[in-house]
């Protein structure tokens, strides 16, 4: 009896090239004749461009060309926003590849230099003279909506990018005369995603064929090709986009940016391969940010802690322009998740998307769900404090009871499956919750401040049904396709349209095929990332890759199994209905000796010497899979912190979590996703924040100033899981890439507030720096 490969934590098949330095990321590619682009970026957050003098730069050593907005205007179309949420008056303002008249954030492009090497290109940037007329600046999303605030776009009065309302039940009635109401203003600070690989692009142009090839650090090469076609005007089938090895994305590599388009433009103009690679400081000002909400929130409840309503008014900063998917994040992926894992009858989310003079905002790990989860978990802790109840008890009184096949919530979604109480019990048992509370009381008596934070969450991912995508204004489908192809030698390729970039699907996908057809994982290679040799797909984000591509692979494998069964029957001279399958072998029922392996069948199908009447040669199947529903993973997390009252220093002592993503294909990879996610969410709670001054200058413009989690700052994460399969997916699986980030920020935040209870501190802004904590303690 062999161990089932589905569920085995086998080591990753992509690792050998990564641990030896042999992997090829975009900037590692060196084509003969490659020249280098560098982008001149605005130093002002808002200014009129009076003139751009490129003459000295153009004459500098090694410089081939300098282009400005005057050159790209009318040649490159504006960068489109691809998520125009309906019924919300989205202002799809023009987002030019290179600004011509006005710059709207520090980082907006005003010119591009192409030179023989990157040092020469950077030198020449310094020689470009831009004459600016500075304009007034606004960076706070709520301030930007007020009368008299500086205006970014003529066609977006009050800087309103959109206004969206979702409600379920009768949310206003719930607040007419509630027994209890708690209120807070929550600041979801702006965050900088910071994948370790900065963004890069390499473009080549073949004029004789009219073909553009674009290597890009993309999470979704097929969407990139589609948008490149829209921006350049080139036909889609003449564009090849390749996302080679990609060093993390966390949402910041979803958008199609002006700079890739400018790189392509330069290659087409010059007839040379052109490479552009951003510096980290450029990444911090010009690659998309996340979050940036100002939220006014109210929660109504009964005296015994039953939540009767939640409502909010949210100002969601969009930055200076609408990035590719930006409007969908604070709306569909945030406002619709205000019920979380709780039975909440009356809910209303009112969201203003707001232009500000800052870097455009996009998806950032969790994208909308961390904000929604934080909002609920924060408000529930406030309610618990108001009622003097244990925060765990308040959660218990509101959790949706176990369900296995669909549960409708007030906001119109149908959750797939959930057992929230079990997750909560499991994590509380694991940490010894009551003992922790006793320890806390003991320490408090000695003026030592330990805090315990608990969160229960449910999130929406595995996005999603294409019909829903259309209904919510997403400018594309959300299905995936997978080709499984067996060769005569019994080896197989899987071709997918998604584009993993660290999530390990070259391994998990091989495990799926291996599990379905008994082929060894080492005999399977997964191909992704190149639009010329992968089938169409919408990309890797929203914890959807394993859920949707994985389903497509399983269904392709099952089609192959059906064909293989028929072919095996023919070869064994038996009736098809008498053929059974087990562990990669097709055999005649009752006569296991009479069998054909999947490899035998693959050989015959490929040579086709002896096929049943009417059967096509080849052993290959394609599946276009559109999911009937999103997936809704869930869990419960606990954080334990200590606060030094003299210094405000917070120590994250312990972090334990139970996450349920259904059956796990590779538990080692699942755990790794949770570790990384939890630490990223801890970053938001404790250290990270994009800080702008009143002139719109990013003060946290490098890793010297933007505080990322480091190894010595975080404890070992204690990961546990429960397993509640999704009924809406052929493998039962749910996404796991973002759960850690979604749950950990409020868990840690609540733990710190809990630690500060003796000081009467009830709210703090994130990140919870020692200074903020110290001031809060000493101002009470």
């Amino acid at each position, binding site marked *: 009896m062999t161990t089932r490969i589905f569920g085995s934590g086998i080591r990753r098949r992509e690792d050998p090239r990564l641990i030896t330095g042999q992997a090829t990321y975009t900037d590692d590619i060196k084509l003969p004749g490659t020249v280098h682009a560098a982008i001149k970026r605005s130093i002002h957050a808002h200014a009129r461009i009076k003139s751009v003098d490129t003459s000295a730069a153009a004459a500098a050593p090694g410089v081939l060309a300098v282009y400005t907005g005057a050159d790209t205007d009318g040649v490159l179309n504006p960068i489109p926003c691809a998520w125009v949420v309906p019924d919300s008056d989205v202002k799809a303002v023009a987002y030019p590849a290179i600004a011509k008249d006005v710059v709207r954030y520090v980082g907006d492009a005003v010119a591009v230099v192409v030179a023989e090497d990157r040092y020469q290109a950077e030198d020449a940037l310094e020689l470009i003279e831009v004459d600016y007329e500075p304009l007034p600046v606004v960076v706070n999303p709520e301030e930007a909506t007020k009368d008299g605030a500086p205006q970014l776009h003529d066609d977006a009065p009050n800087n309103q990018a959109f206004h969206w309302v979702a409600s379920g039940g009768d949310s206003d009635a719930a607040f007419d005369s509630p027994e209890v109401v708690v209120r807070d203003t929550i600041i979801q600070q702006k965050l900088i995603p910071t*994948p370790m690989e900065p963004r890069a692009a390499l473009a080549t142009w073949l004029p004789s064929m009219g073909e553009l090839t674009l290597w890009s650090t993309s999470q979704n090469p097929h969407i990139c090709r589609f948008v490149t076609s829209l921006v350049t005007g080139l036909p889609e089938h003449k564009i090849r986009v390749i996302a080679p090895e990609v060093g993390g994305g966390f949402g910041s590599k979803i958008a199609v940016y002006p700079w890739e388009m400018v790189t392509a433009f330069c290659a087409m103009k010059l007839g040379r391969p052109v490479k552009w690679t951003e510096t980290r400081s450029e990444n911090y000002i010009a690659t998309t940010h996340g979050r940036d909400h100002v939220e006014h929130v109210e929660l109504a409840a009964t005296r015994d802690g039953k939540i009767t309503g939640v409502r909010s008014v949210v100002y969601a900063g969009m930055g200076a322009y609408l990035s590719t998917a930006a409007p969908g994040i604070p709306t569909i992926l945030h406002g619709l998740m205000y019920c979380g894992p709780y039975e909440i009858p009356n809910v209303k989310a009112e969201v203003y998307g707001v232009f500000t003079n800052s870097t455009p905002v996009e998806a950032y790990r969790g994208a909308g769900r961390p904000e929604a989860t934080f909002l609920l978990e924060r408000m529930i802790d406030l309610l618990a404090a108001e009622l003097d109840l244990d925060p765990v008890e308040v959660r218990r009184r509101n959790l949706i009871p176990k369900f296995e096949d669909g549960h409708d919530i007030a906001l119109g979604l149908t959750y797939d499956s959930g057992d929230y109480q079990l997750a909560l019990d499991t994590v509380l048992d694991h940490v010894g919750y009551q003992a922790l509370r006793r320890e806390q009381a003991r320490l408090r008596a000695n003026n030592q401040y330990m805090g315990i934070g608990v969160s229960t969450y449910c999130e929406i991912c595995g996005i999603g049904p294409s019909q829903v995508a259309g209904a919510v204004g997403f400018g594309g489908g959300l299905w995936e396709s997978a080709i499984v192809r067996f060769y005569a030698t019994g080896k197989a390729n899987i071709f997918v349209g998604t584009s993993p970039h660290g999530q390990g699907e070259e391994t998990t996908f091989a495990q799926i095929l291996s599990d379905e057809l008994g082929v060894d994982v080492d005999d399977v290679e997964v191909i992704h990332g190149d639009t010329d040799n992968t089938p169409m797909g919408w990309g890797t984000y929203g914890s959807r890759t394993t859920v949707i591509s994985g389903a497509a692979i399983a269904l392709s494998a099952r089609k192959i199994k059906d064909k293989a069964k028929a072919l095996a029957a023919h070869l064994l001279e038996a009736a098809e209905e008498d053929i059974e399958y087990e562990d990669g072998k097709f055999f005649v029922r009752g006569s296991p000796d009479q069998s054909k392996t999947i490899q035998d069948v693959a050989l015959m199908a490929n040579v086709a010497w002896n096929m049943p009447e009417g059967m096509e040669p080849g052993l290959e199947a394609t599946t276009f899979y559109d999911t009937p529903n999103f997936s809704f993973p869930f869990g419960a997390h606990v954080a334990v912190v200590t606060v030094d009252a003299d210094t405000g220093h917070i120590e994250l002592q312990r972090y334990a979590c139970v996450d349920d993503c259904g059956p796990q294909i590779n538990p080692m990879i699942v755990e790794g996703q949770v570790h990384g996610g939890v630490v990223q969410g801890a970053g938001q709670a404790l250290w990270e924040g994009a800080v702008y001054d009143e002139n719109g200058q990013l003060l946290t413009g490098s890793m010297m100033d933007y505080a990322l989690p480091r190894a010595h700052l975080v404890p070992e994460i204690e990961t546990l899981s429960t397993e509640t399969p999704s009924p809406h997916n052929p493998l039962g699986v749910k996404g796991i890439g973002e759960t850690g980030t979604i749950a950990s920020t409020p868990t840690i935040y609540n733990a710190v507030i809990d630690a500060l209870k003796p000081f009467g501190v009830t709210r703090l802004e994130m990140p919870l720096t020692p200074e903020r904590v110290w001031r809060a303690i000493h101002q009470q």
Partner: protein
Amino acid sequence: MAKIPIQITVNGQVRQFEVDTRLLLVHYLREELGLTGTKIGCDTSQCGACVVHVNGAAVKSCTLLAVQVDGAEITTIEGLASDGGALHPLQEAFWNNHGLQCGYCTSGMIMASVELLQRNPRPTGQEVREGLEGNICRCTGYQNIVKAVLAAAEAMGGQR
């Protein structure tokens, strides 16, 4: 731009080049020698993606000029495995323990860890965390990196 001749031994091979005085070591390795396993992650010597060994010491190659290492012996990630291709115990341990996800920080992380184990052959988990403070990983939350380094220490027979 003035060019200066330098001679460096990289992964056991003697290399002679004329380089611009301002050329960074990391660009020399990546652009001139084609050793792209060494990465650039931050440009401000914060992240450690560019760590290589210069005369056995772990060094951030984005903060050194190529001319500064004239005469030195350098090892990059490409030179870590044995001549026969057998992985270094740290490479093996990163693989076995899922110590990497996107792989971008991995070269620097492994090179820093090799030096860490040379200095402290049997570190505690906390010592590994403190030793790798200068290397940033955005994917793993560091947990499996620490696990990998501890496993490598064990495999290499380090004595506490």
